[in-house]
């Protein structure tokens, strides 16, 4: 059982204060002249690193309990959206094909649903070595228990080293249930993935609210589950010929029964979806009033762009949460993102990392966005935008 041991003799008063101050969870305190670690400890080991030997991690995790050579292959869960494959799926396949360059192994797609053979045949063009299909009337509509039974059946058959699932509403329900069935790890919303030669999946994601990145491994368990949001990775290219066969698998017995019965399926009215937008004009706290908003709207219209915002604009009620970019909002991947009066917290940046070209207009040269943007324009948007709009709307250029 790993736990922290404090060597009280190695402590100096200065070190005591440092350690109390640096614990991000406030779990270190001084009691009766002794430094103690409370129940708030999350074993982040910051104190071990900074403790000059006074804090020691004792009792390491048990050695590998899994034979990694028995687990090979990357499985991509191919979620359906209507009768087609969800657009996150070719992105996951694209990443899987990239991952196998450092650790050669097959890439498979797994489709679960009813009447989905056309979708499966189309999916075969995206580079997976095989597309496996569970197609049955019982799988019409998402039932977590039946879908978990199918994905688990696939895992037992093929022993993949990693399973990738889109971080959609369906994926966030299916992936944890299946991961728990195999008593294995699941890392949500990965923003970067790499694979080591021993098939360890290196999962990188923002942690602790988003201002820090964490590199997460699943060293002693297989398969390694991760979810990835739509528009984080690049799509695999569509090839003119299928890369592999479509293989039908029989409905596993475990999928026959379920504690859930789908009574009715209703369409959900389609809403603005900034995650699909090619061009985005995003506004933040620097846009202070209606006039600023109107300028942003005009710019969006002129560029044929979607209007989006940062978190404070949702909290203030000025915007619908569906237009929010960031870790707690949407991930976007436009070819152009113009950030107006946005400071660029890591929270926000986590949602815009995939933008090809970011232009930031901000009066504060020290705002984090100015280091993230491809073009950082230091100036007053209330002055720049009217002049720019006038030029665009007049439609003539006089290059200075």
């Amino acid at each position, binding site marked *: *059982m790993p*736990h922290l041991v404090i060597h009280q003799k190695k402590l100096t008063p200065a070190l005591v204060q440092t350690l109390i101050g640096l*614990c*991000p*969870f406030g*779990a270190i305190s001084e009691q009766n002249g002794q430094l103690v670690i*409370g*129940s708030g*400890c*999350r*074993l*982040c080991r910051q104190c071990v*690193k900074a403790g000059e030997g006074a804090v020691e991690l004792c009792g390491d*995790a048990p050695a590998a309990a899994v034979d990694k050579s028995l687990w090979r292959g990357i499985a991509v869960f191919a979620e359906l959206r*209507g009768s087609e494959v969800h657009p996150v799926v070719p992105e996951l396949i694209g990443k899987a094909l990239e991952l196998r360059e450092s650790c050669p192994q097959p890439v498979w797609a797994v489709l679960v649903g009813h009447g989905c053979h056309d979708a499966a045949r189309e999916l075969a063009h995206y580079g997976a070595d095989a597309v496996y299909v569970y197609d049955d009337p019982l799988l019409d509509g*998402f*039932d977590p228990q039946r879908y978990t039974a199918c994905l688990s059946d696939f895992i037992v058959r093929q022993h993949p080293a990693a399973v990738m699932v889109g971080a*959609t509403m*369906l994926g*966030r*329900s299916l992936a*944890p249930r*299946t991961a*728990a069935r195999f008593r*294995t*790890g*699941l890392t*949500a*919303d990965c923003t970067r993935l790499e694979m080591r030669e021993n098939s360890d999946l290196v999962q990188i994601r923002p942690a*602790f*609210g988003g*201002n*820090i*990145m*964490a*590199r*997460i*491994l699943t*060293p002693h368990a297989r398969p390694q589950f991760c979810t990835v949001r739509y528009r984080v990775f690049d799509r695999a290219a569509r090839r003119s010929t299928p890369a592999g066969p479509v293989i039908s698998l029989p409905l596993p017995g475990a999928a026959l029964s379920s504690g*859930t*019965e789908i*009574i009715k399926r*209703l*369409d959900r009215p389609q809403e603005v979806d900034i995650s699909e937008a090619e*061009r985005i004009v995003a506004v933040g706290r620097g846009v202070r009033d209606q006039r600023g908003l109107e300028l942003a709207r005009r710019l969006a219209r002129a560029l044929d762009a979607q209007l989006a915002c940062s978190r404070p604009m949702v909290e203030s009620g000025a915007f619908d949460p569906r237009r929010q970019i960031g870790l707690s909002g949407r991930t976007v991947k436009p070819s152009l993102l113009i950030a107006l009066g946005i400071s660029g917290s*890591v929270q926000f*940046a986590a949602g815009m990392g995939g933008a090809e*070209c970011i232009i930031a207009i901000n009066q504060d040269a020290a705002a984090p966005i*100015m*280091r993230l943007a491809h*073009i*950082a*324009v*230091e*100036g007053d948007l209330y002055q*720049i*935008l009217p002049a*720019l709009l006038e030029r665009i709307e007049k439609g*003539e*250029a006089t290059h200075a």
Partner: protein
Amino acid sequence: MDILVCIKQVPGSTNVQVDPETGVLKRDSQKGKLNPYDLFALELAFSLRERVGGTVTALTMGPAQAERALLECLYMGADRALLLCDRRFAGADVLATSRALSAGIRRAGPFDLIVCGKQTTDGDTAQVGAEIAELLDIPHACNVREISPAGSGQLMAETVLEREILCVRMSMPCLVTAEKDINTPRLPSFVRKMAASDKAVELLTLDDLPDRDERLYGLTGSATQVERIFPPDNETVQEHWAGPNAELAEKLYAFLLDATLIER
């Protein structure tokens, strides 16, 4: 109907900073608060109790300070509150957290319905609910916006997916996670605060759980391990423009034109 609601105390602010020089987390001085998404889960449970009778129990795993979040639940109207608190739970990932919570539910139950919030504001992963359901071997539905009793040990639930809403009939016991903004959460009441003063939060340690194998919990029981935390790398600026606003506007116009983002 006996309902259990899983809650979490989260940092009062999500603005955790890291020192770019040392890579050390800067301490967040803010006090903890009840995860805002859990308020909708609690309200869902309270309103169901009002319709069909029964009890509402709040459960969390966390440090001793998390008692405050549980007291808040009691003041809002929970009948019972349980705190899973043990240093051997520390460093738990999703799997080890779900194990501890499902073991706590087994110990305190039986319950007809488990309700979780959609996600927490500090982890943002929205995974623990479905893992608990699997470990308890009961059906689950995520992002539920409406729930009603359907007789003979069953519930009707409306679960929200990306492009559709599924109306499902679930057999109890079952677990749902509550979609946000589906109701107006009640506030802690002063009267209840006074009435609840003798209701202590019940403390559970690892030794109280049905499965006392400590290798299942905390860091040892976690399948994932954080190898390193680091500040995000900031891309270097490719271009920095400053100067009179009119010139900046002209430069932007030329750039947009050049990149064929606008037409002349």
